[in-house]
């Protein structure tokens, strides 16, 4: 299984747009780590290469230098495979895959990630492949690229960043909260509709969903309204005090500024 961070997808898209005029695709190295059987791809960089119909030349010295440099910043990064920015897998890919098998740490199969920047199906598709040997033993052997399930994973911070990137302009806090509240309201409405449907016998109840709902309801903390009020008031007072202190500190600064800039 392969988990890809969104940074990788963006970097590949960006480098594809910057390729030389005669190149059809861009290739580069993927870095990350391997946890149990899952390969997590965290970053990538482009490696210059030349590809003609007959042969392919990849500047591996560059690749090795870059990995060295990257390792100076973060020692836990290691090469986990390579990417190409087109969905088409050519014969040269097998050669490149072979090479990367030598670069990755022992025991790890290099992953080949292909990002469909040509938008063949009107969607950019990301696929991961591993090379498996095939053929008749003892006689002709070859390798074939086999697909591996690949999905995108995010850290919390990345989700926030992606959400902000999606907004057409910088919106304020209140709009975000409003949007989040509306979304939660919609989700609750659909859950209620589903539960009512099951109760009336129109829909078949799913046990797993039912258990999730039970956990959800039980996870709301039970507090007496009085205690809740006290807690809310206390927190509001704390926050107001902080706002007051912050304004208090800023006042002499404003005075200083107006005095010294006359």
């Amino acid at each position: 299984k392969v988990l890809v961070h969104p940074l990788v997808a963006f970097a590949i898209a960006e480098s594809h747009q910057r390729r030389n005029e005669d190149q059809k695709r861009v290739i580069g190295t993927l870095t990350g780590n391997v946890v149990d059987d899952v390969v997590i791809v965290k970053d990538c960089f482009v490696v210059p290469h030349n590809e003609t119909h007959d042969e392919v030349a990849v500047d591996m010295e560059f690749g090795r230098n870059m990995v060295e440099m990257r390792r100076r910043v973060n020692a836990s990064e290691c090469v986990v495979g390579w990417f190409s920015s087109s969905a088409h897998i050519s014969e040269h890919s097998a050669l490149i895959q072979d090479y990367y098998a030598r670069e990755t740490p022992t025991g790890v199969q290099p992953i080949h990630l292909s990002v469909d920047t040509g938008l063949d199906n009107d969607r950019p598709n990301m696929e991961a492949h591993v090379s498996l040997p095939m053929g008749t033993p003892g006689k002709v052997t070859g390798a074939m690229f086999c697909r591996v399930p690949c999905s995108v994973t995010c850290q919390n911070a990345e989700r926030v960043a992606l959400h902000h990137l999606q907004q057409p302009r910088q919106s304020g806090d209140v709009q975000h909260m409003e949007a989040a509240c509306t979304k939660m309201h919609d989700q609750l409405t659909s859950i209620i509709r589903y539960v009512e449907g099951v109760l009336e016998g129109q829909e078949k109840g799913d046990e797993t969903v039912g258990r999730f709902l039970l956990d959800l309801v039980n996870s709301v903390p039970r507090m007496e309204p009085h205690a809740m009020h006290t807690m809310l008031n206390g927190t509001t007072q704390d926050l107001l005090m902080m706002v007051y202190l912050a304004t208090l500190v800023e006042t002499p600064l404003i005075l200083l500024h107006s005095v010294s800039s006359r």
Partner: protein
Amino acid sequence: MASATTSCRVDGLVLLRILRHCHGYTNEAPLDICSGVLQGMINGSVLEVTDCFATPMEASEEEDNDEIAEYSEQMLRLVREVNSDHVQVGWYISSLERSPFSRVIMETQYQYQRSLSHEHSILLIYNPMETMQGRLSLEAYRLSSKAMEVMNEGTFTEKSLQEHKLSWSSMFEQVPLDLHRSTLANTLLLELSSTGAVEPPHEFLTVGGSSQLETCMRLMMDTVDDASQDINRYSQFLKQQQRQQQQISQHKMRRQQENTARQQRGEAPLPEEDLDKLFKPMQAPPRLDGLLVSQQLSSYGKQLREVAGSNLSKLLVLKSMQ
């Protein structure tokens, strides 16, 4: 100087890379110190930042700058081969515990802006704690032209500050920042959000951040201590200077009296003594730290108010649901 850049456009990729660097490679805990170099180009009056890379932070202070400079040069040479912009347009730091407006940072930014090819360098400050709260905090700063003039002179006496009318708020000027995504990146975003691979963040509804508020308060208290120390030092200097002036004028008066007394008696007046040798002129303490401290305080105050404000509004919503 060439026409100053009026705004700055940051690519989404740069944002993600900075995030990746500052939030740690292995787990989600934000790193304490991280900095890196921004690459890009200048397009008229807009500074475009198209890529960035992280620079290693070493423990030793002396070798720090050389190693980083050498690393940056090597990296820029390498990325040139892959058609990435190899012009350095600035640098970024993350401001977790330390304040971003310290002397070292100001001097580094000054060095950048002074070198001819990097006049338009900007400093991107990223605050990882705010991202945990659901808000994106990325700001671009540059030393104002007034600050550059004063730095060129080298001294930071009260007189030179008043000459240039430099106050704490006009030292660093903020450059308006714009997040940019290319069309291909937009399709990727659409794909990611439609397949549900990336859920929208739920931090907008959390009333958390008490740890962040505590950190902010603590830093603010320390900075207020620094500010009061600085003010004490300066007022002590002023008192001492006043005392010295009094002594000088007393000495002069005594001198004159003696001279008139001697003249009356018919003796030669005493030779003029070099006043400087008797009363050493005092060195004014540099005011740079005071300016920086004020800037830090102001930024903490602003941050505190924003976070507290947003928490308050969330609490109000919660209250209405009771």
